[in-house]
C-alpha cells in the first residue's frame, strides 16, 4: 500500500505570483516610508525631539487645527450633498442610474490639475462666481486665495469619494423594507430614521472617513487656491521638505498624518466599509450596476 501525502495542490506557485507586486510595493512604498519613520526618530540616535517639537513650534498645531476644521466642513458638505444623490441613484431605473454614475465617475477620473484650474478660473477676481455674487450685491466677497474658495473646490473634487461608498452601501438595502414599514403605519420620516438610516450606516461611515482622511492630506487644491497664510498641513509638509530641508521634521509630521489616516481607515473598516469596495465601484464602469 503506497502512501501519497502530497500537500494540497501547490499553493507555492500562487505565492510566487505575488512576489513581483509585493516587491515593487515594498521597494517603492514601504522602504521610503520606513526610512522616513527612522529619520523621524532621529536615527542613529533615538530621539523624540522631532515629534515633540511639532507640538511646541507654534505653527504645526495651528495648521493642523485649520486642516482638521476644513476637513470637517468638507466632509459635512459632501455628506449632505452626497447622501441624497446616492439615494436617488438607488431609486432610478438602470439607464438613468448609469448616467448618474457616469456623472460621478468622470470627474473622479479627470485630471486633478484640470479640475483645480477650472476652479481657479471660476473663483478668480472678476471671475464668474464673483460676478454672480456682485449681481446679488455682495461684490466684495473674495474667493480666490481664501479658505472658502478652497473648501468649495475641495468639496467638488472629493464628492465622488462620498457618493461611491454610499451608493455601494445604499444599493444593497432592500427598498421593500421601507414600504413594509410604511404599510405597518410608520410615517415616511420615521420609517427612514428607524430602518433605512441604520442599514446605511456602514456606507456612511466609509464615506465620511474616506473624505475626511483625503481632505487631511490634500495638497494641490489648497496650494493653488489658498493663500500661504492659510496653509494646510500638506503644504506645511512640502515646505519642510523642499524649502527647509528638514527631512527629519518632515518625516515626523508625515508619520503623524499617516498614523491618523491609517487609524481612521482601520476604524472605518470595522463598520463594513472597505476601501477595496470603493475601488471596485470605481473601476467597473462597464459592469451593469443595476
Amino acid at each position, binding site marked *: 500500500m503506497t502512501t501519497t501525502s502530497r500537500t494540497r495542490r501547490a499553493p507555492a506557485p500562487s505565492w510566487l505570483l505575488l512576489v513581483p507586486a509585493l516587491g515593487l510595493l515594498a521597494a517603492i512604498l514601504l522602504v521610503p516610508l520606513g526610512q522616513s519613520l527612522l529619520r523621524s526618530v532621529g536615527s542613529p540616535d533615538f530621539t523624540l525631539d522631532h515629534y515633540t517639537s511639532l507640538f511646541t513650534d507654534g505653527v504645526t498645531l495651528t495648521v493642523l487645527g485649520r486642516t482638521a476644521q476644513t476637513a470637517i466642513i468638507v466632509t459635512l458638505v459632501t455628506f449632505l450633498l452626497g447622501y441624497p444623490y446616492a439615494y436617488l441613484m438607488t431609486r432610478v431605473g438602470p439607464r438613468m442610474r448609469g448616467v448618474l454614475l457616469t456623472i460621478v465617475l468622470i470627474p473622479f477620473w479627470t485630471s486633478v490639475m484640470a479640475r483645480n484650474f477650472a476652479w481657479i478660473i471660476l473663483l478668480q477676481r472678476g471671475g464668474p462666481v464673483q460676478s454672480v455674487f456682485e449681481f446679488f450685491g455682495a461684490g466684495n466677497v473674495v474667493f480666490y486665495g481664501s479658505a472658502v474658495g478652497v473648501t468649495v473646490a475641495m468639496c467638488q473634487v472629493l464628492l465622488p469619494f462620498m457618493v461611491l461608498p454610499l451608493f455601494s452601501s445604499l444599493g444593497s438595502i432592500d427598498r421593500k423594507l421601507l414600504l413594509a414599514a410604511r404599510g405597518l403605519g410608520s410615517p415616511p420620516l420615521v420609517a427612514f430614521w428607524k430602518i433605512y438610516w441604520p442599514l446605511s450606516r456602514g456606507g456612511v461611515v466609509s464615506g465620511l472617513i474616506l473624505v475626511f482622511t483625503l481632505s487631511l492630506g490634500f495638497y494641490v487644491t489648497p496650494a493653488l487656491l489658498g493663500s500661504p497664510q492659510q496653509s494646510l498641513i500638506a503644504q506645511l509638509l512640502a515646505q519642510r521638505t523642499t524649502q527647509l530641508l528638514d527631512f527629519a521634521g518632515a518625516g515626523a509630521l508625515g508619520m503623524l498624518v499617516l498614523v491618523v489616516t491609517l487609524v481612521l481607515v482601520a476604524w472605518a473598516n470595522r463598520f463594513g466599509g472597505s476601501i477595496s469596495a470603493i475601488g471596485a465601484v470605481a473601476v*467597473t464602469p462597464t459592469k451593469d450596476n443595476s
Partner: protein
Amino acid sequence: MKRKDRGVDPIPWWLKTLGVIVALYFILPTLVVIPLSFSADQSFQFPPTEFSLRWYQNFFTNPVWLGSLGNSLLVAVLAALLATMVGTAAAVGLSRLTGRLAGFARTLLMVSMVTPAIVVAVAIYITFLQWHLTGSLGGYVLAHAAIGVPFVLVAVTSALGGFDPKLLRASASLGASPVRSFIRVTMPLISRGILSGAIFAFVTSFDEVVIALFLRSPTFQTLPVQMYNSVTFELDPTISASSSLVVVVVTAIFLVPQLLGNRKKTR
C-alpha cells in the same frame, strides 16, 4: 427597481431637483475650461470675449509643453504596463489563496489607495534622492506603477470573481496543463478586466500631480507639472487648451468602453 413598482413609490420632486443640482456641481466646473481654451486673451478672463486657437497651437508646437506631454505619455504607458503585469499576477495568485496571510498581503497591496499622497510623495522623494532616481524616467515609472497596482488588482480580482473555477477543472480533464489552461481559458475570460485595470493605471499615472511635483527636474517634467507651473510661476493660458484636451480624451476613454459594452450585450 421594476417599472411597475415605480408608480407605487414615485421619486419626490425635491430629490430629483437636488440630484440635478449635485450633478451640475459635479460636471459644470470642469466644463468651464473648454470655452476658455478658445479664448484669444492672454489672461484667464472668463467668459472669453474673443476667440482663437492659439493656445492649442502653442500646446502642440511649444517644446516645453510638447516635451511634458511626451514624458507623461511615456511614463503612463510604461507604468501601466508594469502595474498591469505585476497586478494581474498578484490578482491571480491571491484568487487561489485563502487565510489570514493572504488577506494581509491583499491589504498591503491596496495600501497606497488610502495613504495620503503628500506623505507618500515626500517619503519617495527623499529616498529617491539617495537612489539618484529623481528626475528620471525610471523613478517616475516605478512610483506611478506602485500607485497603479491597487487599481489593476481590484479590476482583475473582480473579473476573476465572475470566473467559474470548474472551467479550469474541465480544461484539465480535457488534457490541458495548468499553464495551457491559464492561456486558453483564464486569460481570454479576464482580458476585459485586465484591460480595464490597465486603462485605470494609465489614467492614474497620466494625471498624477503630487509625486510628479516632487520628482521633477528641469530636464524631466510631466504634463500635470507643466500645468502646475503655468498657474504658479508663469501665467500661461496654454493650460486651458491642455485641460480641455485631457478632459475630453479621458472622458472618451471612459465612455467608449461603456458604449461598446452595451452593444456587446445584445450579441
